[in-house]
C-alpha cells in the first residue's frame, strides 16, 4: 500500500491550479485526501500529477449571500458542521455531516472533495441534491454555474472537464416554515450509508407547500423521488400521506452489492423516507 510514483504540485492560487490543470496530463486534485489517499495507496488511482489544493487561497469559507449560503469547496466538513450559520440556516447539512465518517476524517475532509468524489452513498451528495445546490465551476474560460442535478454523469464521475475545478457550492436557504431531516442506515456508525434519506418539507398552514426527497446509496447517484414529492405537495402532513409517499420506494430501482441486496435497499428506503418525513414535519411544526 505505497502509491505509484507521481509528481506533486503545491500551488497557492486558483489561477495556478487552472494553469496546471490546463498543462498537465492525467492530473488529480487533492482536497482533504480522505478518499484519494487510500485510492493512491491501494493503487486504484494512478495519477501522474497530484495538485494539492490545501494551500490555495480563496477556496474556504461560509458566507450568507442573498437567499443562499455559499461554501468554499475546500471548507472542512468539521467547520461546516460546527458553523453557527449552517446550524441556524441549513440544519439538514449539519445533521447529515454527523454521519460522515468520523470526527478525525471530518477535520480533514472537505465539502468539495466529497461532492467531486461522488460516492453513491455520500451524505453530502444527497443533501446537496435535496437542497437543489448550485455549483461554481472554474476553468480557463472563467466561471460557470451548474445545478447539482446535472453534476453526476456516471458512476463516481462528475461533469467536470479535465481543466476545470469546483470552487464553491451555493445552497438556497429554504423559506420560513420548513423542516428538514436526514436519516440513514449504515452497519456501523461512520460507514458509508447503505441507504440515506434527506428530506425538506415546507408547510403552509396545514398543507405541504413544497417537498424534497432524496435517497443516497440506492443507485449510482443520488435519487430524487419526484413522484413522491408530487404526492406530498398539497397534502396534509399526516401518517397516511407519509406512508403513501414512502410506499413509492417499493418501485425504485436499487442496486445489489455485497453490502446489501436490492430488496433490502428498497425496504430501507421506505423506512428511512418515512422516518425522515415524520421528523421533518415535526420540526417544521415547531
Amino acid at each position, binding site marked *: *500500500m*505505497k*502509491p*505509484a*510514483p507521481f509528481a506533486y504540485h503545491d500551488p497557492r492560487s486558483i489561477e495556478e491550479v487552472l494553469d496546471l490543470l490546463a498543462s498537465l496530463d492525467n492530473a488529480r486534485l487533492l482536497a482533504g485526501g480522505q478518499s484519494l489517499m*487510500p485510492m493512491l495507496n*491501494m*493503487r486504484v488511482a494512478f495519477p501522474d500529477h497530484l495538485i494539492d489544493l490545501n494551500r490555495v487561497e480563496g477556496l474556504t469559507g461560509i458566507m450568507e449571500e442573498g437567499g443562499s449560503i455559499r461554501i468554499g469547496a475546500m471548507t472542512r466538513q468539521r467547520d461546516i458542521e460546527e458553523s453557527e450559520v449552517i446550524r441556524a440556516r441549513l440544519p439538514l447539512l449539519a445533521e447529515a455531516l454527523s454521519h460522515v465518517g468520523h470526527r478525525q476524517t471530518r477535520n480533514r475532509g472537505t465539502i468539495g472533495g466529497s461532492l467531486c468524489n461522488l460516492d453513491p452513498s455520500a451524505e453530502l451528495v444527497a443533501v446537496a441534491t435535496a437542497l437543489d445546490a448550485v455549483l461554481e465551476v472554474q476553468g480557463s474560460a472563467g466561471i460557470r454555474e451548474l445545478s447539482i442535478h446535472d453534476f453526476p454523469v456516471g458512476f463516481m464521475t462528475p461533469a467536470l472537464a479535465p481543466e476545470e475545478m469546483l470552487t464553491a457550492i451555493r445552497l438556497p436557504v429554504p423559506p420560513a416554515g420548513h423542516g428538514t431531516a436526514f436519516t440513514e*442506515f449504515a*452497519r*456501523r*456508525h*461512520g*460507514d*458509508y450509508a447503505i441507504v440515506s434519506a434527506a428530506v425538506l418539507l415546507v408547510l403552509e398552514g396545514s398543507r405541504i407547500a413544497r417537498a424534497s426527497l432524496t435517497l443516497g446509496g440506492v443507485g449510482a447517484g443520488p435519487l430524487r423521488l419526484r413522484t413522491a414529492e408530487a404526492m406530498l405537495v398539497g397534502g396534509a402532513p399526516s401518517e397516511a400521506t407519509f406512508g403513501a409517499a414512502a410506499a413509492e420506494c417499493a418501485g425504485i430501482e436499487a442496486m445489489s452489492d*455485497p*453490502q*446489501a*441486496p436490492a430488496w*433490502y435497499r428498497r*425496504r*430501507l428506503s421506505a*423506512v*428511512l423516507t418515512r*422516518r425522515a418525513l415524520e421528523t421533518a414535519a415535526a420540526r417544521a411544526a415547531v
Partner: protein
Amino acid sequence: MMDGITPEAARHILPAGPGKVVGRGVARIEDGPLLRGEGRFAADVNFPRQLHMRVVRAELAHARLLRVDASAARTMPGVVAVWTAEDVAEIPPIPFRATKVRGLEPYCQPVLARDRLRYVGEPVAVVFADDAYRAEDAAEMVVVEAEELPVLLDATAPPAEFAPGLDTEPTVVRKEYGEVGAAFRAAHAVVELELSVGRHSGVPLETRGAIARYDASSDVLELHGTAKKQHWNRDEIARLLGRPPNGVHLFEGHVGGGFGVRGELYPEDLLVCAAALRLRRPIKWIEDRREHFVATNHSREQHHRIRAAVDAEGRLLAIDDAFFHDQGAYVRTHGARVADLAAGMLPGPYRLPAYRVAGHFRLTNKTPAATYRAPGRFETTFVRERLMDAIAHRLGLDPVEVRRRNLVAAAEMPFARPLDTLGTDIILDSGDYEGLLDKALARFGWDAMQEELAARRAAGECVGAGLAFFVEKSGLGPSDGVRISIDATGAVELVSGAASVGQGVETVLAQICAEALGVDYARVRVVHGRTDRIEFGNGAHASRVTVMSGSATWEAALAVREMALETAGTLLQLPPSELTIAEGVVCRADGATGPSVTLAEVARRMGPNAPEMRGRTPGLTAERWFWSDHMAYPYGVHLAQLRIDRGTGAVTVERYLVANDIGRAINPVLVEGQIRGGFAQGLGGALFEEFRYDPQGQPLSTTFADYLIPTIAEMPVVDVLIAEDAPSPLNPLGVKGAGEGGTNAVGAAFAAAVDDALRRPGAVTSLPILPAQVRRMLDGAA
C-alpha cells in the same frame, strides 16, 4: 488431580483471597513506553543497509501456474533481487507444530507457489529493493501467467482433487464414546439442527512484520518483529534453512495484538531469513492491511449438522454431529487443531452419556485458516447452545431450566470425559456451573427483566434476551520455565520463555514474583519472547501464560526467597524461619525491631567472589519449571438483552453480562480488560465480521470498509462478573486462563436473544446475524 503440582510446590499453594499484590488491580508495568509513543513494534525496527521485501500474490483463486516472468521487475530502479519458486526450491514447505493427525504433509504450503495457485493472496514471487515504494513498483512488473481452474468454495460440497491421488478432504476428525445408536433409539425426542458460522478472524491493529538480519561476524541470524511462539519458530527456521538453532535468534518487541493469528510461522518469515542469509543485507517486510486480509490466517468457518437425543425431562442422552471445517487452501502450522478442538470441546458443560462427531477437515480456494481467540469453541458453543435452546423449545421447557438439568454438578468434579483434545484427556478440573449460573442470573436480574421485556413487547417493541453457557480451556502444557535473579543492586529480573501479545504478561508475572519475594512488583524486569535469553519456551497461546509461566514464576520466586532467607539467616544470626522479606529487605517476621539486610546485600554475599560461595554455584538466582499434562477449564455464562429495529432489522445491545470463573484473578482489572476485549471480537463474529468471496473466489473483504470490525460506537457497556469459586487444583496458584471466555459465547447468546426478540425459536441458524436477514425473519414473524 494434582498432577500439575510438584511436591515441592504443593507446600506453597497460594492462599485464597487478595495478597499484597496478587489479586489486586495494580497498574500495568508495560504501559509507560506505549503511552509515551516509545514502543517498538515490528515497523519500528530498522537496520542500516536494509532491503524491503514485497510479495507478489496470486490474483486467481485456483489456477495452473505456467510461468512467472520477473525479467522486467529485475531491471527496475533499486531492485536487488526477485525470487520465484525456483529460487527457494531448497526450502521445505511450512511445517506443522500442532497436530497428531498423520498424512497432512502433502497439503502444506510452499513458501512460494510452485505449480498451482490455490487462493487469492498466495505468495508467488518476492521483490527485494532498497525502498518499500520501489519494491512495490517492481512487484507490479512481475508477470504471472496462469491457467484458471474451477474453484471450490464450499466445504460442504463433495471434495475435489487437490493433487493426483489426493482429494480436498485431508482428514476427518472422529471422536466417539457411549452407545450413540441405542440412545437415539431410546430417545423421547430427537432434535436436529443445521447451523453455520461465518469466516472471520483476528485482525490486529498491528499487521504482521518480519525483519531478518544476518550477523556474519558472529554467524547469527536474527529475526525481529516476532510474536507468540519464538522458540518453536526458532527451531523450525533453523531446521528449514539448515542452520543450528543456536545460530538463530528471535526477538519480540511490542506486539499490537495477536489473537492467535500473529506469530505463527508463515512463508514471509522464512523468505526474509533466507534473503538475509543470501543477500547479506537486513531484510524488512511489513504486511499491509490489504495483504493481511488475504494472507494472514482466517478462522471459524464451519457448518454443522447436529442431532441430539433427549429424554422426556430434556436430559441429553446423546449428541451426533457431523461438521465441515473450511480450512482454506492449505494446511498451515496448526494441522487439524481447530477441527480437533471443536470436536473435543463441543459437549461443553453438560453431562453427555454418548457422543459421536465427525469433523470433515476440508480444503477450499480461500486463505488458509487456523486458530483465532476461542478456536473451535466460539463455533461449537454457538452450535451446542442453539441445540439446548431447541431442546427447551421442543419440550416446552425454560431455556435456563434445560441447562440446569444438564450441567455437570459441582460434586461430580473433577469430571472426566472419555474424550481428548490437543493430545490431552478432557478432565474438567473444577467448577460449580450451576452456582455461577445462579449468580449470573441474579446479577442480571433475569426474572425481573423478563417481566419488563414482556411489558415492552406489549407496547410494540421488539426486544429479547438470551443466554449461553460455555466451557473454555487453558493452561496447555507440557512445560514452562522461569529464571529469577536478584543482582547486587537488588534489581530483580525474571526471564521467561513466554511471549507477550499485549495482554499484560509482564505485570502478571511481576505480581506473582513480587508476592513470593516481598519486592515491589513495578521494579521486576520481565524478559520474554527472546530465544537468546532462555533456552526453552512455549510462548503465548491457548490461554496458557498465567497458568504455566505464572506457576513457574511462583516456584522460582519461592526458591529465590528460600535462598535469600538462608543467606540472610547466616548474616543476621537468626533461623530463616523467623525471617521474612518486605520491600526488598530481609527482616524479622514477627515485626520486632532488630537487624535486617537488603536483598542487594544478600545478593552481594552470594556473588562469585564472595568467600562463602567457594565451591557453590554463585548468585541469588533460581530457575524452576512447571509441568502439566492436563488443561484447566474455565467456564462461564453470557447473558444478552437486545432490541431490534423493526424497520431496518438492526440489532442494538441493551445489556450484556459475562460471568466467568477463572479460578483466581491475579489482576482483576486485566481480567476484565481481557473479557471486554474478547467480547468485542465475539461481537464482531456475531454481528459484523465476515470474509466474503465472489463465485470466482475473489475476496470481497479486503479493506476495513468491507470487513466490519465493531468500533467504540457499536460496543455496549459490558458487565463482567469474575468468579473465583473453583480454583484449579492443577497449579499452585489455582488459576485458569482468562483470555478467551469473553469471546466464546457471544455468538450463541446473541442468537438466543434475537430468537427471543423475534418470538421465533430457532430462527437464527448462522453467524454473523445480518440486519437484512433479521428483516427477512421479521417478515416471517409477522
